[in-house]
């Protein structure tokens, strides 16, 4: 009946991660004010999704995997991150 052929014993490739964005989960979007940022990297350290990365200008956010938890904004010692409601 089934048209799709499935392997008898399913396997995966080591080291390969295939994933989908979770940005649609987000209610609030973290926006970093780089002028205020002191590059302490606390946001980078505590981001549970690993979606904040380092750049010479300061932290950048890969919004595809940001769930909008707001830990970065809450922990930022200089309040350089603002949570803005998604449209």
């Amino acid at each position, binding site marked *: 009946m089934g048209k*799709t052929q499935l392997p008898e014993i399913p396997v995966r490739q080591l*080291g*390969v*991660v*295939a994933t989908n964005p979770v940005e649609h989960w*987000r209610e609030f979007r973290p926006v970093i004010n780089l002028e205020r940022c002191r590059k302490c990297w606390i946001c980078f350290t505590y981001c*549970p999704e*690993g979606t904040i990365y380092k750049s010479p200008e300061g932290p950048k956010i890969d919004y*595809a995997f940001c769930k909008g938890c707001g830990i970065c904004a*809450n922990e930022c010692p200089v309040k350089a991150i603002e949570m803005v409601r998604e449209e």
Partner: protein
Amino acid sequence: MGKVTLLSGNAAVAYGVKLSRAQVISTYPITPSTTIVEYLAEFVARGELKAEYIHPEGEHSAVAAALAAAAAGARSFTATSSQGLGYAYEIVAQAPAFRAPFLMAIADRTLGWYWSLQSDYSDIMPTRDLGWLQFFAESVQECLDAPMILYKIAENENVLLPVMLSLDGFNLTHSTEPVSIPSQEDVDDFLPSRKMYKHTLDPSVQDTFLDHRLPPNAHTIYRRIFEDTFERSKKVIYEVTREFTERFGRDMYGLIEEYKTDGAEILLLTMGSMTTAAKRAVDALRRENIKAGLIKFRFFRPFPEEEIIEVIEKNGVKAVGVVDRAVSHGSRRGPVAQDVLSTLYKLKDRPSFINFIAGMGGEDISIEDFKTMFKYLNNATTGDKATVSTIFMEKEPVIEKQRFTYKDKMLGGGSYLCPGCGIALFAKYVFSKLGKNTLVVVPPSCYSVGIPRVSGVPNILANFAAPAAFARGYKRAYLIRGSKTRVVVIAGDGCAADIGLQSLSSAAEANEPILWITYDNEAYMNTGIQRSGTTPYAAWTTTTPVGDVWKGKNVFPKDMISIMMAHRIPYIATLSLAFTKDFEEKLQKALDVVDNNVGMAYLHVHAVCPTGWRFDPSKSIEVARLAVLTGVWPLLEIKNGVFNLTFIPPKLRPVKEYLQLQGRFAHMSEDQIKEVQNFVEKRWKSLMELHEKKLW
């Protein structure tokens, strides 16, 4: 007077059990049965049901305690699903010989088989031979009515057997329908209170008790006696279901329900919630003058052999179909089909027979699917000779497309964990240290649902009670094969402190070179916030709710560090997500211990949970930090027997600062807060006494 309201199947079972005035409830969380016992916990917490409530460490014990309570003369209840039923199997097998009537709800779900949460009968069917009555509910109303009927049948002196109430996972457990709730007075009138029998175990009241010793050559006799009992139970089932139907005006009569069987040439046998769609297919075919009919099993045990034969003979049925949501592997048939086929042997003119295997792993069986089955049955009526066959009703698999693919990655984004989840951060820290040569062993948990799909290393599921044993087997294979693969167990607190503690202890005693990491979010979060052995005192959970009678969890948590210290393994430590340097150093020390095959390392991480602890996800680190600063979560390590507090704050902050951030503690009285403060201060003092001491 009763009332009509909207209830899910699980809520309906809970109401039915409450109306039946169950006296002892003993359960362990497992999807999809869990909400049954959450509702019951609410009833007890609010004082609406006077019952003893037991929170054991696993299903093996949950069913044992319910059985024992029934053997001791109380009306008892338990509920489980799938792996839980499998884990409890030996107790389930033991139960009938106690001749202690009690009720177990089975929220059906696939057993084993790639760990689906979805419904089929592969869990309940293997228990069909053990000596339990088995009732299958079709609707939410039947879920509510069944407990009072089943208690009355089971407690009849001509029966005295345990009974299973089967309700299909999600299709019934989590589907909402309008139901009529009878009044307590009417139910009390119908169902008298539980009686004592001669074999009931209560030496202070009775002068006889159950004798477990069977003399030699008595086993076959007792097996026959059980069969006689099942035969007798049919009469009781007819009596009780007739009485219920007359009193409450809802048809629950008999072992089977016949649907449009008059003159039926093709007959389909179904059970459970699929029956409703099958009935609609029968309606459609009857409108086309196709003589289709249906038998629904209300009871599968006792097996309604005479009833099936009567319907077939009376109507001259030419083809019989059985829909099985389970397979007896190696026989190419389902268990229901096997019983029906042997029944057909009694007939002189045997109809053709088709076994349909359908609805496995929660796959939908639609009205169209049932029409297709009837078409097959119609075709089977045309030949000269009766035929027997099995048809797998296969579906087109849904393959999820992934937008991003990364190579050489240990962990990617896009986990299914909640925003602000401590486990997500924990995984980020841990995977930054783990390389490709790591095998992660994961029991069922939030982690197992959220992380494996975005991890590049094998995260292999282990049964809830046995991850340490899985880890030992993997590691020993690598050792003897000269492989460098490291084995890490990542388990939640429910596994580590409750159901998996026995196998963890055994592995620790043997000092196996494996790393065990407990991420402690202080409850069974994956099944929806049920109390675990490490849930803090006074914390609200769905199985320790707050009401007039209960004020959250009534005892202090288990001390896992002391338990691990008692095993004298080379490295033990507690970690906090807020103290990253301390976290990294301890993780490295633990990896050194296992990578050099020195022995076992045990890490215990405070894994903050915004969803279960009821705080805003942005506060995760704040909560984690305050746990350490208030002394609620001491940071310590024991390396080769030397105890060290790795962070000593100049002065502990009041625990109230930590508690007040979390909704799970919102109900706490000043007295309760004081109790926690005293507990923390006393513990801190005893830890300071151990500081820098060599303990072994």
